[in-house]
């Protein structure tokens, strides 16, 4: 396990998040949502802090974190990319878009690029099936994406960074 040292101010905020919900284990999922909002992801140390605050075993926190796909234990990129693999997107060629993304970024699903710019994930249906296949980068939705368009979409972000 990598050593992660949480900044003290953030730990204080995390304590506050738990306290706001009366350190109630029944609120664990809501607390994790808030904690992920604060840190961007849920590393083991964060889970340990929450477990101590709620007075429950860290295994229970870990069990919940790994059960739900919304929670992640790896930091996301500056521009998190999600390729929709809902059925509507799948039948309109989302798999090819995903493959092209992996090739262009040279990472696999669930990974983050070494420069920390992009992370790649799949999601199940954003409900914009009329625009299938759909890719989300941050909050922005790209519709009717084809493998050929992938390079153009990414290069916008590379340009922004330069």
């Amino acid at each position, binding site marked *: 396990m990598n050593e992660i040292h949480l900044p003290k101010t953030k730990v204080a905020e995390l304590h506050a998040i738990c306290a706001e919900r009366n350190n109630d*284990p029944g609120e664990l*999922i809501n607390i994790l949502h808030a904690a992920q909002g604060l840190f961007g992801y849920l590393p083991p140390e964060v889970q340990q802090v929450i477990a101590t605050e709620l007075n429950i075993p860290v295994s229970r926190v870990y069990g919940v974190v790994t059960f739900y796909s919304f929670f992640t234990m790896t930091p996301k990129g500056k521009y998190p990319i999600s390729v929709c693999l809902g059925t509507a997107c799948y039948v309109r060629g989302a798999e090819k878009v995903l493959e092209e993304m992996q*090739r262009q970024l040279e990472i696999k699903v669930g990974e983050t690029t070494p420069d920390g710019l992009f992370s790649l994930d799949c999601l199940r*249906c954003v409900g914009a099936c009329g625009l299938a296949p759909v890719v989300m980068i941050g909050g922005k939705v790209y519709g009717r994406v084809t493998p050929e368009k992938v390079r153009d979409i990414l290069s916008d972000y590379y340009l922004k960074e330069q």
Partner: protein
Amino acid sequence: MAQYTNYILVCGGTGCRASQSEQIIENLKAAVDQYGLEDTQVIRTGCFGFCEKGPVVKMIPDNTFYVQVQPSDADEIVREHLVKGRKVERLLYVNPETHELVPDSKHIGFYKKQLRIALRNCGFINPENIDEYIARDGYVALGKALVEMTPEEVIKEIMDSGLRGRGGGGFPTGLKWQITRKVQAPQKYVVCNADEGDPGAFMDRSILEGDPHSIVEAMAINGYCTGASKGLVYIRAEYPLAVERLKIAIRQAKEYGLLGENIFGTDFSFDIEIRYGAGAFVCGEETALIHSMEGLRGEATVKPPFPSEHGYKGCPTNVNNVETYANIPVILLRGAKWFSSIGTEKSKGTKVFALAGKVNNVGLIEVPMGTTLREVIFGIGGGIKDGKKFKAVQTGGPSGGCLTEKHLDLPIDYDNLLSAGSMMGSGGMIVMDEDDCMVAMAKFYLDFTVEESCGKCAPCRIGNKRLHEILQKITSGNGTEDDLTRLRNLATVIKDTALCGLGQTSPNPVLSTMDNFYDEYLAHVREHRCPSHQCRELTQYFINPEKCKGCTLCARVCPVHAITGDRKIPHIIDPQSCIRCGTCMEKCKFGAIYVH
């Protein structure tokens, strides 16, 4: 207060927002100001349903329907339509058959055949304004229930209407309420299941985004009937817009005294809280959903005890789906008799479907129960994309099955779909054409189930994994006929022995594709061939040297540089490095690339 005579309705659903509808609204407002049109109001509504043609803009009172509007069109719409009184013809919907311009929404085939009950307000009102909901008889049903009716009378009305759960199971809603009512307990809960997990279904989200007050109202009615003072909405965190609008609706209802203490001056008090899901398909199952709300892993437990006896925090809990709730206020207002006059003998009312896949008009539709698949796919859906041939339609998502050409004239209701080997599910309807491989499709759904299985029971956790491995073997060309027998046996065992709805229905895509497309399975195992050329390991791309002009386009678009050849000389594909993405075939202008 300003008096408006003209309204510009702009779709603010997730699909249209992704196509810049927010910018369109801003530009329209700016144009309305610029031309000094004080009698015109721009309103951001919920989803119109016609997502294929989004962003959609509708003019009231004349119902002119503009499609695929760009932010730069705003000025022209206001100037031409409102100032000069001329329609902007280039933005009108074109009838795909007659190629004529359609002047208003009432004449668009997509809407003509629909009957919108659950979606009655979506696309009509501003979901963030309670007054608009009230203006369309909102909260009248709640008032009627609380002031004029006893809980028993309301339950009887719902029972008589024949309403069945719209989340998938199809359990009679009135009966469910009655069971919860009869259990004696100091605290009870009513829950709205808004954990829409079926990939490709988005009706619950659209209702919450387009008409959140109808859910608030219906939950309060449910609370009155079952004796619960607390409502909980379990909603996906992936639906930020729906969450936001629901929060606004709850806040406004509290301000108006429609939630809180002593509603309508009666002794009934009711309050609603939001609980967030975190992305788990199994949480659509009642018991798993309740565990998730308690801050646990969303694992299903054996029923009985049913949630109506032992649910959230051990209290009696009544769980209903969003679409089910959306029907409740209308039933109370217009009566059980009216509602039960719509639909088939055992399935009353309407059903919302998310029509998607290889169909011309992707969108959200609502039709009376008993409408045939043909009317939905070819009438409302406008047929198959790019003039291809219809092959199958998957209803019920990962729990459902594939229906084929022979089922097209089947009237859609709960029981017909079940006996045809599929199910209603939450209403996802994915259309597939001749290019889709049904074995790969079954594998796709299994991918999903394997990932989403909660892991509690062995048939689902291990069985589905094995099913997936066999399908993987078949689609990569290593399958045998014995594998087909094994596939069917295992699928049947899982169906019979899994713990919850997810596991019991997960083999359905496999079984229904085996029943309807056995020849495709045989082609994969006997001839190691994929008839739809979709399974990559079984296909290979070739260039026909007689047709190839040596234009080099394919070599340039190939992402892995597998195509070589000099200018004006037929090119060659290296099968070793080819990843079979098909880009070359799509791009070739001479039809020189073929697949085997």
